[in-house]
């Protein structure tokens, strides 16, 4: 079967505007990726990892420096017109559209860029507005919408043209729980409703990726570090256990990383509460005693202790070497 997205050795280097103004930045470094038709695929990575750059190349907004990218079997560089007929894109925090138009008018305007017949477009817009709970806002000017309502409108804009492949760049960024849930539920239903619909989703939110995605690629510094189902990714840290400790402010944490049985160690200071949060990925339970001893040796007091099973976040920390700051 035809892959929805296929990327081979994709590299993108951004050169500074003027040579003396800085160094070039390699946003994507020989990325290989294949997303099958019908998949809900997640791209997980910290800020600046290269997620948006990859999406821009796939959506024909940016040319690669090297390598190839195909969407629905079409080369994004050469066959961009064919690619565009089959895609759409939604970004988190988007403020697209015109403030003086109503919600329905804005959505209608964007359907016209896809050659949709007005009557068909209007009917589909009405259906989607109802589905997203925005029917009562359809005649309101866009500038009167709340952040959540606006993003729901953006999501409708992306889906109303019924693309084969949709690129969602952090679509729930900054939204409250309810708005996020409505959007997530819609994405899952949409991809399952018809065969060969594909979603490529970038996100910051581990839980979102874990819940929604059939497969996830972890990307950092322009490279794909791992790519598998969430379950298989978690198996990568299967043998490990996670220990979380909240302790009174700890000045010196240099020893923790070298304790036997500690594979990864991260910490965070909360100066306001005068506390330090320690997080360990352990290969052996025996490390727990040594960690507690070290905490006491440093004169700190344990406020709480929690041992957890591996999560996607742990996988991420293992792969990337740091959490999301």
């Amino acid at each position: 079967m035809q892959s929805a997205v296929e990327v081979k050795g994709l590299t993108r280097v951004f050169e500074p505007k003027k040579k003396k103004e800085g160094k070039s930045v390699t946003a994507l470094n020989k990325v290989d990726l294949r997303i099958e038709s019908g998949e809900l695929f997640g791209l997980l990575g910290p800020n600046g990892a290269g997620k948006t750059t990859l999406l821009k190349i796939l959506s024909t907004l940016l040319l690669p420096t090297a390598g190839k990218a195909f969407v629905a079997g079409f080369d994004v560089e050469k066959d961009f017109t064919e690619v565009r007929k089959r895609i759409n894109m939604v970004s988190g925090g988007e403020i697209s559209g015109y403030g003086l138009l109503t919600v329905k008018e804005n959505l209608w305007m964007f359907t016209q860029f896809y050659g949709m017949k007005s009557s068909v477009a209007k009917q589909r817009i009405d259906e989607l507005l109802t589905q997203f709970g925005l029917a009562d806002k359809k005649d309101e000017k866009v500038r009167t919408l709340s952040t959540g309502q606006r993003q729901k409108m953006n999501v409708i804009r992306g889906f109303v043209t019924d693309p084969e492949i949709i690129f969602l760049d952090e679509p729930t960024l900054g939204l409250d729980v309810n708005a996020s849930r409505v959007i997530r539920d819609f994405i899952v239903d949409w991809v399952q409703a018809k065969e060969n619909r594909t979603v490529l989703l970038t996100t910051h939110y581990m839980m979102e990726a874990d819940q929604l995605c059939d497969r996830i690629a972890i990307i950092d510094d322009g490279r794909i570090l791992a790519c598998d189902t969430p379950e298989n990714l978690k198996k990568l840290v299967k043998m490990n256990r996670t220990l979380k400790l909240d302790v009174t402010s700890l000045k010196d944490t240099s020893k923790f990383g070298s304790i036997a049985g500690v594979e990864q160690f991260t910490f965070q200071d909360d100066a306001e509460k005068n506390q330090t949060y320690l997080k360990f990925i352990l290969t052996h339970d025996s490390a727990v005693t040594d960690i507690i001893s070290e905490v006491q040796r440093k004169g700190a007091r344990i406020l709480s202790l929690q041992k957890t099973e591996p999560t996607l976040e742990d996988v991420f920390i293992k792969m990337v070497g740091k959490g999301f700051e």
Partner: protein
Amino acid sequence: MSDTWLITNLRAIRGRAYPRVIGSKREPSWLFFDITLPLLTVSAYAYIYKYMDAPPEFVGFVILGGAMTAFWLNILWAMASQLYWEKEIGNLQLYLIAPISRMSILAGMAVGGLFMTAIRAAATMIIGILLFGIALSFAQPGMIILVFMVTMVSLYGMGMMFASLYLLLGREAYHLSNLLTEPVYLASGLYFPVRALGFWAAAGASIIPMTLGLDALRQLFYPSSGSEYGFLPVNTELAILAVLCVVFLWLSKYSLAYMEKLGKTTGRLTLRWQ
């Protein structure tokens, strides 16, 4: 080129023109400023001609020029700089991923802008005519309409070219449009017959379509003034404007394709900065 392609692009033009057309209806308060502000300048220049005991047609020249400023300002701020603002609010990338010719977006902007501005310009002209009690000749209505249409197509063709040339600009877009205001008013002879600049300067300024368009309209509205104040015969001006139509539309298509490719290569196409 299939029917579907044509219909898709016609729909795109309609879609992009819509916000501009509906904007006039929805925000009528803009009309007040768009009509009043040019009238103030027109009044000042009309009074200076009156003070100098200029022939009466000069007040008419100024009013026609004042109406034409509306189109030029629309070209600068709602065509040339528009893609920069579209980039800022995130619309540009959505236009660029759509399966349509980029020219349809520009054409939609132009059609909507032309419609909106024509209303303002007509209002400025009518109020100016009533205020200063000037009499225009309508002896050749067909020619007046033809010259106006050809001027507008070439002018908005130039606007479409500007829009693509501005595509990769950031804050410079604002300053460039600002810079192209008074110097173009001067070069195009918006407030005096362009012939006063001398033949070669006026010929050079004729690259801006409103130079010849305005000169031709002045000659048509004041048939007796042509020999003394007209730059070239009306038919010659019309022919040159027709050539400019083709040249600017072709250049806008070429420059847009070039700038888009350049933007996609350098990564500056969707980059926002202040």
